[in-house]
């Protein structure tokens, strides 16, 4: 892993068109500003993982549940 040290207001470039700027540092919180083309998706990792997990848990596994639902 590449490790870089940055101060507030400084940024890094990822490729030619993604820029990540350190906006604020407050104890163990860092606020980042990200400039990237629309085609580059930027997500918090834990949200991404949570969605993945929920998707997997949402596979319909039982016909009984469905029938119960549609009886209503």
């Amino acid at each position: 892993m590449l490790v870089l040290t940055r101060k507030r207001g400084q940024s890094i470039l990822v490729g030619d068109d993604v820029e990540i700027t350190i906006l604020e540092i407050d104890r163990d919180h860092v606020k980042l500003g990200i400039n990237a083309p629309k085609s580059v998706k930027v997500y918090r990792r834990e949200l991404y993982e949570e969605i993945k997990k929920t998707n997997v848990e949402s596979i319909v596994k039982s016909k009984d549940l469905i029938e119960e639902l549609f009886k209503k």
Partner: protein
Amino acid sequence: MLVKTLFWGNIEIEDEYKIRFISPILGFEEEKEFVLIKEQEDSPFYWLQSLRTPELAFLLADPFVFFPEYTVELDESYKDRNIAIYVIVSLNENFKLSTANLVAPIVVDVDTKEASQIILENSLYTTRHYIFENSSNPVVAG
């Protein structure tokens, strides 16, 4: 087209119900082609059945029926396109506790049949909101 399903066996479905994920359902990156069919006329529920994997089906819902205040902010690439929005339902054995994923809806271009699961970063929505309670409160505050 003949579609193999786990719950209904082989069923004949018109090609017009086929959709293709250009941005995948997260965790199902290999699954591109599905059919999207309404559960019944007048039903807010839909089936999303994989064409590749008979065992893979999701229950989707029209979010605006259950969450009238629901708001999805789409990027400019969706401007002037005819789109439909669905949310994935997670069924619970006590079906009253079933939830919908409002933070990652499925967006379908009605004309091109291209679908994406999008993530609403910076929204107040979570992956689990009770659908049978008239509330958009998440199950667990996130």
